[in-house]
């Protein structure tokens, strides 16, 4: 049985000659590409609109908070019980004087005792 490359080639060529692509194939493809582009554009528009809405809600909420909440310092000063060791490391604690644990100066009684 003879089945060589030449014979296969001839059979395939003869078969392929009987068909040709339809003339409207490019129209179909370009229409589909256009539909894709429109779909993508619509998706982008929806995403932008959603982002704008979110931004507007955020700004409105911030404004309401600003109007409703009375003015006060943004950060409450840390109040520590006298003698608390953490106070030693807080800035400005030592300058205030008093009996805080941040005060590393010796009292006169302690100095007298040392003497």
């Amino acid at each position, binding site marked *: *049985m*003879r*089945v060589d*490359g030449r*014979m*296969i*080639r*001839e*059979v*395939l*060529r*003869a*078969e*392929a000659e009987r*068909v*040709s*692509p*339809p003339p409207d*194939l*490019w129209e*179909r*493809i*370009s229409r*589909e*590409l256009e539909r*894709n582009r429109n779909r993508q554009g619509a998706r982008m528009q929806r995403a932008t609109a959603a982002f704008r809405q979110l931004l507007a809600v955020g700004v409105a909420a911030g404004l309401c908070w600003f109007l409703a909440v009375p003015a006060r310092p943004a950060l409450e000063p840390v109040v520590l019980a006298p003698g608390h060791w953490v106070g030693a490391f807080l800035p400005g604690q030592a300058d205030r004087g008093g009996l805080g644990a941040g005060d590393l100066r010796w009292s006169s009684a302690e100095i007298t005792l040392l003497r």
Partner: protein
Amino acid sequence: MRDVESELIARCQAGDQSALEEMFLVYRDDVFRFAYLVVRDATLAQDVVQETFLKVFRSINKFEFRSSFKSWLYRVAVNEAITLLRRRKIREELDPMPGAIQEHQRGRLERAWQPEEAVLDSEERRLLHVAIGRLDPVHRSVVVLKYFHEFSDSEIAAIIGCPPGTVKSRLHRARELLRNHMARQLGRPDLVALSYHRLSAHTPLVPCEE
């Protein structure tokens, strides 16, 4: 030619619509004939061509000129043709046609070869035409790429994502299957190779890289 092609691809990547059409016109006939020879139905072949070009155009920005554009295009076409045939097979399994209709359709396809109209009119060639139609799509793709499009083994390997050795063995198997099918049809079982049953046993319906 390569420079012209590169320039065309670059224009497509820049979003030039006329470049897309030019690209389509350059490859339309080849891709359509390839699809037709693999799926063996003009309507299905149109779907394969449409899907192939849509996929390629949608992802043309990802093409980095590392491989040949033609290989990439054919690779998409092979995958589309096989996917489409697989889908059709599943559909037919879910909704089987009555045996008589199936037999009628098969006969219609086989009679589609009109010896008096064709240049090649011998009984041998008619049988070869039928035998090619009986190959599974993976082997048929390789046969079409090799003998119709005249790609080299390494080019086919790049298209279907297999080593060149696999391409050679697939071609060998395909020729063997064709020879055996024809021998059976001619009523010459003595010409059927002993390996026929092994060869015609379930062959994978997927290309190497999937």
